[in-house]
């Protein structure tokens, strides 16, 4: 029915080739074609950040990205971060600081935080708040998330 296209990319360090619908989002590709469900659908409009992934080292909303545009790029999802020892401190900080409640925003938040720490290794609380302004959380009130990221920031040194 809809036009298909073959693409190849690196996903969490592993080369992948898949066929996708041309109009499909990278989010749907990850969840429905590849079967990695750690990346969440929250709004489909880039307003909530639950679908955040890293593309070529930059965080992006996978719900705003065309799957075909992943061709030739390097994608890292929460599953990739979960397997990456460099992200251990960050995930542990989320657990330790109580930054997780219902957990639905957490994967996107962790991916965004990892990007934030990579680009702003000395981030203070205000920078961290701005860094996660595109990630909505309904449970925590953000304070513990900011605390967690801040501690990972300093703990990583």
């Amino acid at each position, binding site marked *: 029915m*809809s*036009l298909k296209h073959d693409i190849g990319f690196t996903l969490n360090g592993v080369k992948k080739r898949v066929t996708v619908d041309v109009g499909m989002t990278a989010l749907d590709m990850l969840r429905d074609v590849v079967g990695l469900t750690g990346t969440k659908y929250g709004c*489909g409009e880039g307003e909530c950040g639950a679908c955040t992934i890293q593309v070529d080292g930059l965080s*992006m909303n996978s719900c*705003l*990205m065309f799957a*075909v545009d992943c061709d030739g790029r390097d994608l890292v999802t929460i599953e990739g971060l979960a397997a990456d020892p460099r992200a251990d401190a960050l995930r542990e900080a989320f657990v330790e600081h109580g930054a997780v409640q219902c957990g639905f925003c957490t994967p996107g938040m962790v991916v965004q935080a990892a990007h*934030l720490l990579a680009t702003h290794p000395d981030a203070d609380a205000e920078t961290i708040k701005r860094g996660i302004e595109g990630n909505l959380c309904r449970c925590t009130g953000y304070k513990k998330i900011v605390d967690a990221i801040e501690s990972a920031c300093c703990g990583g040194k």
Partner: protein
Amino acid sequence: MTPIEQYLAPATLDEAVGILQQGEVTILAGGTDLMPQSKAGRLAIKRTLMNIRRIPELKGIALDNDAIRIGALTTITEILNDPLVKEYLPVLADACDHFASDQIRNAGTLGGNIGNASPAGDTLVPLIVLDAEVELASKPNGSVTTRRLPLAEFFTGPGRTKRAANELLTAVRIPLPKAGHVARFFKFGTRPALDISAISIGIAGVIDNGVISNARVAFGAVAPTPIRAARTEEALEGRRLDEATIEAVASAARDEVNPIDDVRATAWYRKELIHNMTKRILDHVAQA
């Protein structure tokens, strides 16, 4: 919605404008606007979806004689972090800092923000007061030609511009500001960035011995397109920023705009904000 019949990702500008020449093409850059618009059915993707993200000519920020040229594919994050922009066009960097979220700044492009022609587009108002021009390329007779248009004249309505169907927006050129140039941007919102502005204001000019020349004033989200405000500029041009001038400019601004009521604000409130914030910006400039 007509189904997409072909997906193309050209690697050169020449190829891209050649594809555009064949007609019925939707251009994909960062996708941050195209994807949600098409998913919601507000925008139908045409027969050909052309991804221009692999075209090197469309990338980068460089000094080009007396102007700074920003390639259409340059992302908002790249502009925000660029040393040339920081040095010469701080008002543009400021606007980029108030743009959506980190994730969207990382994906969204300057060309996309201009091409979408939203009346509330965050980079448009500062670019207009910086006298920016857009560069459009096409290949009507087998060879690539380009033309330039002042950005202030580029927009014709919400989502509509003077870009012809066979043209590609390749870059924005911003003349290097003269000595004494001052420019300010204000975006109204309760959040630092993740807000569609209910109004935005750009004011620029050259201050020499306290007198303003080359006054530029532009407003966002108060008309179907971002607008340059001629009468407000007139009230500012050649004046000193004393209390009377500032009040006159702010009042001229309020009278000049003709906004609408929508879910974000009423027309009355938008006019009040235009007045109060124009005044605040000029107060700050006067105090600096």
